[in-house]
Structure formats: C-alpha cells, structure tokens
C-alpha cells in the first residue's frame, strides 16, 4: 500500500519533471514531446500499439527463457572445466564486443527476417550478463563448504550441483534482473535489424515519419513492459535469495 503510494508519487514526480524539462528548456516537441502529447498518442494509437506490443513481448519472453538457460549453462560449464573456462572467457568477452550491426546481416542470413532473428538478438544481449553474474556467484561458495565436500570425496560435478549452484542462486538472480532490463532492448534492436512488426519497427517507422509522439508512445509501452518484467524477475530473485539463505521452507 505505502509501496504503491510511493511509486505513484515518484512516477508523478517524474512526469512533472518531464513536463518542466520540456517547458524550461524549450526543447521542441519533435525532439522531446511533452507528456500530454505522448498520452494523446498513446490513447489514439492504442490498437496499433497493442498489436505490435504482443509481437515484441513474445520475442522478449522467448529470448529471456533461452538466454538465461544458455547463460546459466555456460557459467556452469566454465566452472566445471575451470582451465577451459579461463581460456574461453576472453573469447566470450570478445564476442560481446561485436556490435549488432556487424551481426545483423549474418543473423538475417541464417535466421531470416522472422521472429527467430529477434529472439537470437535478445538472447545474445542477455546471455552475457546472466553468464557473468552466475559465474561470479559460482566462484564465491563458502570455502568451508568446499573443504567439507573435498573430505567427503565429492566429485567436481556433484560439488557444483549440490553446493556451488544453490549458493550462487542469488548471483543468478542478479543476472536475471539485468537480463529483464536488457531483453526488451535486445528485441527492439532485433527488430531494427529487420522486421515488419513489433514495437521496435513501429518506433523506427514513427521516427522516419517525424511522428515523435508516436515514437515516444511506443517507447513508453516498451519501458512499461521492462518495468513489469523487472518486477516479476525481482520477485523470483527474492525467492532465490531466501532459498539460498535458508530463510524459506520452499522455493
């Protein structure tokens, strides 16, 4: 209740700040439209926005699911084979530094202009934060527990599965929280690479037609989706945190 209230206050402040910014700096509406104009666009284009939203949301969800699974698997793999891991890590970082537009032709060549190139882009973008955060967590297990596992004659794999992994769940949750924020951006970029629907496509189109208010309306829908995702993943993360700390009876 107070939480909802304080969020409401902050949102109201943000909107007020936006309005004041527009007034005070005199920034023209074709660069930054005021909240009123954007609200109007939101309302008038609601059907259009809804239609493109559904497409992007589907891409985002699929991308998050695949990306976090792949990221987690990568982290686990790197920890399971640490020498390989240390050698492969630079390569992984290397691939992360490749900007989208260099990949764009390759992605479309192999995956076409359908939904798969967007999912791939989302996946590519969230894969690294998830893998990196999880990897960090897997490396920070209580050394006492690892000592114990050693004396118990535990294999590397089982130690990973039964000790490192549960202990790293909060770090995994950290990675997921980042993933939730970046996944929508990934999908939008995927749509810029080539698309005929989705919020990213709509934004680009609106931008090209100088319909900045429609672009911002699409952007707000996108941002709200991100906030919702982040909140959802945050709730999951709190459960994982509680589980790893032994504060709950079940996940």
């Amino acid at each position, binding site marked *: 209740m107070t939480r909802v209230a304080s969020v409401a206050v902050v949102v109201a402040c943000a909107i007020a700040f936006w309005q004041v910014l527009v007034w005070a700096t005199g*920034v*023209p*509406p*074709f*660069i930054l439209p005021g909240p009123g104009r954007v609200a109007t666009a939101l309302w008038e284009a609601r059907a259009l926005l809804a239609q493109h939203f559904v497409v992007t949301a589907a891409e985002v969800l699929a991308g998050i699911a695949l990306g976090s699974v792949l990221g987690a698997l990568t982290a686990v793999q790197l920890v399971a084979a640490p020498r390989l891991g240390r050698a492969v890590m630079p390569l992984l970082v290397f691939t992360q530094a490749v900007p*989208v*537009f260099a990949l*764009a*032709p390759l992605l*479309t*060549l192999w995956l*076409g*202009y359908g939904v798969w190139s967007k999912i791939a882009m989302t996946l590519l973008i969230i894969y690294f934060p998830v893998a990196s955060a999880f990897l960090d967590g897997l490396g920070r297990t209580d050394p006492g527990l690892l000592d114990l596992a050693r004396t118990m004659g535990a294999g590397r794999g089982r130690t990973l599965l039964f000790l490192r992994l549960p202990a790293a769940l909060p770090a995994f949750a950290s990675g997921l929280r980042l993933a939730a924020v970046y996944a929508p951006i990934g999908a939008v970029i995927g*749509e*810029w*690479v*080539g*698309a*005929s629907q989705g919020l990213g*496509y709509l934004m*680009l*189109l609106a*931008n*090209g*037609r*100088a*319909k*900045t208010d429609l672009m911002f309306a699409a952007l707000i829908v996108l941002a709200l989706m991100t906030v919702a995702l982040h909140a959802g993943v945050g709730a999951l993360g709190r459960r994982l945190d509680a589980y790893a700390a032994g504060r709950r009876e079940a996940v």
Partner: protein
Amino acid sequence: ADKVTLILDWFVNPDHGPIIVAQEKGFFAAQGLEVEIIPPADPSDPPKLVAAGKADIAVSYQPQLHLQVHEGLGLVRVGTLVATPLNCLLVLADGPVKSIADLKGGKIGFSVAGVEEALLGAVLGRHGLSTADIELVNVNWSLSPSLMSGQVDAVIGAYRNFELNQMDIEGVAGRCFFIEEEGVPAYDELIYVARAEGLDRELMARFLAATELATQYIINNPEASWEIFKGTAAELDDELNRRAWIDTLPRFALRPAALDAGRYARFEAFLLEAGLIEDARPVAEIAIDVGAP
C-alpha cells in the same frame, strides 16, 4: 567570417562533393563563411537538430521534408544538392524478378522509414499491384547485403550511384528500376534545409553561391576534384567512392539556389493522394528561393 553549422545526411560520401570541394577550395571562406561540417549516423536526426536551432543547415531529402513540415518541424528547403531522384528499386540483375510485376508476394527491404510505402505504392500501382501484395521489411543496416544474400527480393531506398557500384564490386550485378520512370513524380533527392523562422536569406545565398562554384569546378575538373575529395580523409579513398564520384557528377544541381516550385507542389499532391499527409500546404511553406526578391 560568419559561422555556419552544416549537418550532412550521413557520413561523408561523394554525394557531398560540392560541399567538400567548396570547403577545401576555399569557396566558403571567399563568401565570408566559416562552415563546420558534421556527419551524423542517423539521417532522421539532422532536420530535427536544425529545426531545434542546433545547426544552421542540414542536408536532407525532399520526400522527408514534406512529412516533417506537416509534423510541424518549421523547416524550408533553401537549396538543392542533388536534383534528381537517386532512389531506386533495386533487384538482382540475374534474379527471378524481371519486371516489377514479378514482385507479387515477395519481400521488399527498406532502410530509412518514411515515404517508402508511398513510393512503392505508386510504382507497384503501375503494374497492377498494391503494397498489400508484398511484405515490407525494414532492413536498416544492410540494404545491399540483404538483397545479395537473397533475404529480400528487392530493396527500395538504394542509391543508384552507390548500391549498383557496390554490388558490382562484390561481383553481384544489380538492376535498378528508376522510380521516376515508374510513376513517382520527379523530386530533388538531396536538398539543403534550414529553419524557416528568422531565416537569413542573405547568408543562405552566400552559402549556395559557394556550392554553385564548387559544383562547376567539379564538372569542369572531375579528376582534380576527386583528388581533393579523397584527400580530405584517408578512409574516403577507395574503389567504390571513385566509381560513385563519376556516377554522381551529372546529378549535382548546377543551380543550387534555383527552385522548381511545380516539383514541390506535385510531390505534395502525390503524398496527399497516398494518404501520408492530410492536407496540401502551399509550396512557400515547404521550399523557397532565397534569392527571390
């Protein structure tokens, strides 16, 4: 000297020949102008920045200008850089698309969103098709690669002076359907736009005079002007730019300040008919002749 900030439509390329040459040969300086040239990455930004007063002149496109004026950007065309359309509907020379009618059910890629739908609508309409018969795909960063690799059947928004050469260099021949031959009213591909409010006509006139001189110099000295152009930055000296330079030469507006009012009126009418604008504005709100008394 008066300072002038000029934003190009994109990174420096042979389309900007008169501007670069005017700068390098000192024609701007001779007009008492100190011109700062800024290349952006997104062609939709420059008009906005000029309309916002962040720059004095932008290189933009006539079709976009119409839309922008209708969206309230407060811009006018003050001069012309390239006086013919460069845009073409590009297909593979030895691909399955022999005529525009073959595009039925195909995918057409575009890059800069805006008027492509209208242009395509006109072109397709002449061949008994409509935009409902094709799928429009935004291919943003890879116009010719998406065509060469067969991801799309055609692309619109390709420049006849570049993409054709580019594909040729890669060993894949392309074929252009020139859109002004296919029912689209002829227009100025590249224009100079400035803020309508408080427009300094005299300054614009001096600017255009310098580019006019530069254009004539280019026409008169194609090789020497190429040397000047490529000398401005190491990354400009390559095969593609050399070829494009030759192909672009005849398309530079020889009289940059001259305004063909009918051309703007016709295009306005064309956009109105295509449903992209809701009313027709008088030409004076879109384009002016800065030298007119």
